[in-house]
């Protein structure tokens, strides 16, 4: 029974695929981001080096196989022990190639690792087998991401369960999305069009269904799309609503008279904590303060903040962070 099934698939699958085999076999993924060209140049250089050395090794072996094939049984080949200069040569050259490749790839990697400061930030939450994407203006999308062309986009990502991985082959970007931490990647689309989003880290049964599309649009179309949707409250406004609803406002009073520190102008500063460590106030620290409050206490404040772990999901944490960020822009009052 099973063999019949396999045979059917072979014949049926084979038949259709032969037809599609005539279609040209795809060689290169679309290159639609600023870094795609640089990564592809490095990739083709590496392919060149691989083919060069493979051809050298294969042709030398074939040449030796034909030239030095055994003529007679008692043939005694000459005694060749070693040749030190040759050894030094084929140690030095690969080492040199490796050093050059390292610096090239490392500098490319470092440029790509640091998002330009003016990039618009989009929040991504990976959940078992779907992507939630939130624009700061409040628009929410599932498995789809609309971005304007030519604008650097920074994705701040976290996961609600297992490790996922946000991978857009066309932009040559990929970053694991870890639970309990924020990881970020950035890209700047150069060509409009629709490109695949894949989940690049195995995450369970529907890992293969956790895919989607990036729609790169002209800025005008993007603006129309953005406003076209129902009027959403921006993430900062949603954060503010949550901030009051959860009772944070009772302690974190803006004019610093409450039990907790005022959060105005706090984002982006380096604060010395009660444990003596100095930490930059960024998304990770705010999230840690919400989930593990006792590990993030400012020196002259009592450690009385309750943990909100489990009461709010990752999207709400992101909204609170967006709100605290919006507070961060205003000047610090009081204190």
């Amino acid at each position, binding site marked *: 029974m099973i063999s019949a099934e396999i045979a059917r698939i072979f014949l049926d699958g084979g038949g259709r695929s032969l037809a599609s085999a005539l279609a040209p076999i795809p060689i290169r993924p679309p290159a639609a981001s600023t870094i795609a060209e640089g990564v592809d140049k490095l990739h083709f250089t590496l392919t060149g080096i691989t083919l060069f050395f493979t051809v050298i090794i294969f042709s030398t072996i074939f040449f030796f196989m034909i030239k030095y094939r055994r003529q007679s049984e008692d043939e005694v080949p000459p005694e060749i022990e070693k040749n030190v200069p040759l050894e030094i040569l084929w140690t030095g050259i690969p080492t040199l190639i490796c050093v050059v490749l390292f610096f090239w790839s490392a500098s490319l990697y470092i440029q790509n690792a640091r998002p330009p400061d003016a990039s618009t930030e989009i929040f991504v939450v990976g959940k078992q087998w779907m992507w939630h994407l939130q624009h700061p203006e409040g628009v929410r999308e599932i498995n789809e991401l609309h971005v304007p062309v030519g604008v650097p986009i920074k994705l701040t990502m976290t996961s609600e369960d297992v490790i996922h991985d946000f991978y857009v082959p066309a932009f040559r970007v990929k970053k694991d999305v870890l639970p309990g931490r924020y990881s970020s990647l950035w890209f700047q689309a150069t060509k409009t069009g629709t490109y695949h989003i894949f989940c690049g880290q195995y995450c369970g049964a529907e890992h293969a269904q956790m895919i989607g599309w990036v729609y790169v649009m002209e800025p005008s179309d993007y603006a129309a799309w953005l406003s076209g949707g129902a009027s959403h409250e921006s993430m900062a406004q949603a954060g503010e609503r949550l901030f009051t609803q959860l009772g944070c406002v009772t302690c974190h009073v803006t004019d610093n008279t409450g039990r907790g520190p005022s959060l105005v102008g706090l984002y982006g500063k380096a604060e010395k904590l009660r444990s*003596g460590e100095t930490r930059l106030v960024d998304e990770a620290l705010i999230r840690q303060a919400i989930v593990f409050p006792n*590990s993030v206490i400012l020196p002259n404040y009592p*450690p009385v903040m309750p943990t909100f772990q489990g009461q709010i999901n990752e999207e709400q944490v992101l909204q609170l962070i967006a709100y605290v960020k919006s507070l961060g822009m205003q000047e610090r009052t009081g204190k």
Partner: protein
Amino acid sequence: MADMVHTAHSPALVHQFETKEQQHDAGSLGMWVFLATEIMFFGGVFMSYIVYRALHLEAFIQGSHFLDVTFGATNTAVLICSSLTMALAINAAQTGKSKSTIITFLGLTMLLGAAFLFIKFAFEWTHDWTEGLVPGLHFTYSGPHAPGVELFFCFYFFMTGLHALHMVIGLGILATLTVMAYRGRFNSDYYAPLEVSGLYWHFVDIVWIFLFPLLYLIGGRYGGGH
């Protein structure tokens, strides 16, 4: 010529070795290589502990304050005494002392090992259980740094448990050695099993020598930390 080589074999020499000295060296080298694997085995756990201690220093100091230093110190002293008696047992075999001295030293070592386990299980672990500090089974602590303290106690039970397991295996080895000593197998010419088991026992003692400061004495025990 071939059989002459075989007859020269004293009963204790197994067939694949040529000389007794080769067999002795192979035995101790084998144990040392095994101890290298044990270093990496415990090393994996120690590394995880070091990483988490660096990430959650406050919580780990809080957690270590729950541990009783006097029990830890007495346990260390007990193990050091057992190392001494083990070394003396080997020394007794080397210098051809009577069978009974070897057996008494081995008995002392086993006694001290059992004492260590008794202190560990009867006092410390039950004390931690009553206080609700056993993660996964019975963890009721909800003071400051609760998750970090739970992580600390995960490592506490896992590391001391692994060490206790090696102690139990050590006691088993010592029991077989005592039986062999009772049968008079050991003399100044043949004492390899004793020496090899001594290496293992001293290694387990060293693991505890590192466990004691890392678990009980982190960041000092003066007052409430910083």
